[in-house]
């Protein structure tokens, strides 16, 4: 046994879980899929007094799809979501991104809510949430509230979640017509943490860019939108090479790179430009006006 001693509770209802969480807020960790927490416990990077295992709370792993969007219960396993979205054009970003989340055995157990809650800067789920303009639903004994993904990630492993709150669902609004999505990352090996990655969304009408969300991850201390690069593209034709080059230069220059990790700051910065350049070419192929 590698973890330090902890007290263990496996609540059978959400209310029970929230009461336990309120009671032990500062000394407890919620155990969701455990695919990051268990390694941290084994390495003793985490040594909480309490482990509140929410795997037995019913109803938290439900996926509901409506005209408005996709509501994914926090305990939905990564692979369960992948199976749901595999052939759904509206959720192509998730379908492209999830296969890059570690390995099958880890995706079978790891959860969407857990990945969002942990806010690992190299994780795919937080970046997808921002690129899809998702809303994070949190619950505590004080009630429930929603936080837009764009306001949820505050820094390295730091989120807007209060210690007595837990994520109960992530809601992805259905993208309006015209939105295109692309995912790419550079990793040493399939399933490894990305050295740099991009979740990109772009609304294209008659080959012109109307809106864009370019979210880089594994670069800064949290997934980050490249706003200046987005602005350089909006209003331009998807085939406008000069605009694209300007956007790539802006993304490269503007992004904050967190030092440390597997490669140097300059290399990561270079990858940011490469990832965006490739993605913009793919967007042109997907949404370009063939007559234009």
């Amino acid at each position: 046994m590698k973890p330090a001693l902890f007290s263990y509770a496996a609540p059978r209802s959400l209310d029970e879980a929230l009461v336990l969480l309120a009671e032990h807020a500062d000394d407890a960790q919620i155990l969701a899929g455990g695919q990051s927490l268990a390694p941290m416990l084994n390495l003793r990077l985490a040594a909480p007094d309490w482990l509140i295992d929410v795997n037995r709370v019913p109803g938290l792993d439900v996926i509901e799809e409506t005209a408005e969007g996709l509501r994914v219960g926090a305990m939905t396993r990564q692979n369960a979501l992948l199976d749901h979205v595999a052939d759904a054009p509206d959720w192509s970003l998730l379908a492209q991104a999830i296969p890059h989340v570690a390995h099958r055995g880890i995706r079978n157990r790891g959860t969407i809510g857990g990945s969002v809650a942990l806010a690992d800067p190299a994780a795919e789920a937080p970046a997808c949430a921002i690129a899809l303009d998702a809303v994070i639903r949190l619950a505590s004994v004080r009630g429930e509230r929603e936080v837009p993904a764009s306001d949820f990630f505050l820094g390295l492993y730091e989120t807007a979640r209060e210690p007595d709150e837990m994520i109960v669902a992530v809601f992805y609004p259905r993208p309006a017509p015209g939105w295109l999505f692309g995912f790419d990352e550079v990793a040493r090996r399939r399933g490894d943490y990305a050295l740099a990655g991009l979740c990109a969304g772009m609304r294209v009408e008659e080959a012109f860019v109307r809106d864009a969300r370019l979210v880089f991850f594994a670069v800064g201390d949290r997934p980050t939108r490249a706003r200046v690069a987005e602005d350089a593209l909006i209003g331009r034709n998807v085939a406008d090479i000069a605009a694209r080059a300007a956007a790539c230069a802006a993304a490269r220059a503007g992004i904050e790179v967190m030092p440390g990790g597997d490669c140097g700051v300059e290399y990561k910065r270079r990858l940011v430009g490469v990832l965006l350049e490739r993605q913009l070419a793919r967007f042109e192929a997907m949404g370009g006006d063939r007559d234009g």
Partner: protein
Amino acid sequence: MTVDFAQEARVRIETRVNGRTIRAEVPARLSLVEWLRDELGLTGSHVGCEHGVCGACTIVVDGSCLRGCLMFAAQADGCDVETIEGAVASGRLAALQEAFYRHAALQCGFCTSGMLLTAAELLARERNPGRQRIREELSGNYCRCTGYQSIVDAVEVAARAQQEENGS
């Protein structure tokens, strides 16, 4: 700092392991793979890195492969657990085992149980995975003898045999 082991939280579980119902009381921080190996003597699942990287501890829980080092035994209460011993006895790995044997897809054998279970899940889900897909799917299982080439060969052959058997 001394550890007061009287404080060790213990959890009662009832778990089906390879078709047998087992009732036990386990320390909350005992991993599933440690319980299977040390308490039940099912030593076919191996303990490698103990932080989810190497895949040697791969176990099937409720029909899905997962890391036996990243799940606590306490969490297996009510679950259906299948280890390499159970999977082999069921015969469902026979074609893969044969292919591994023919292609010398194991050297020291430490990774083999995890490789077989992971490959079996791939073959159950995909009819015709090519070498690229096989490599992607096995990327979470380390072979420290570095015998990947023959492992991919074996899985590819088993995939093809499965396809022919299904008449497609």
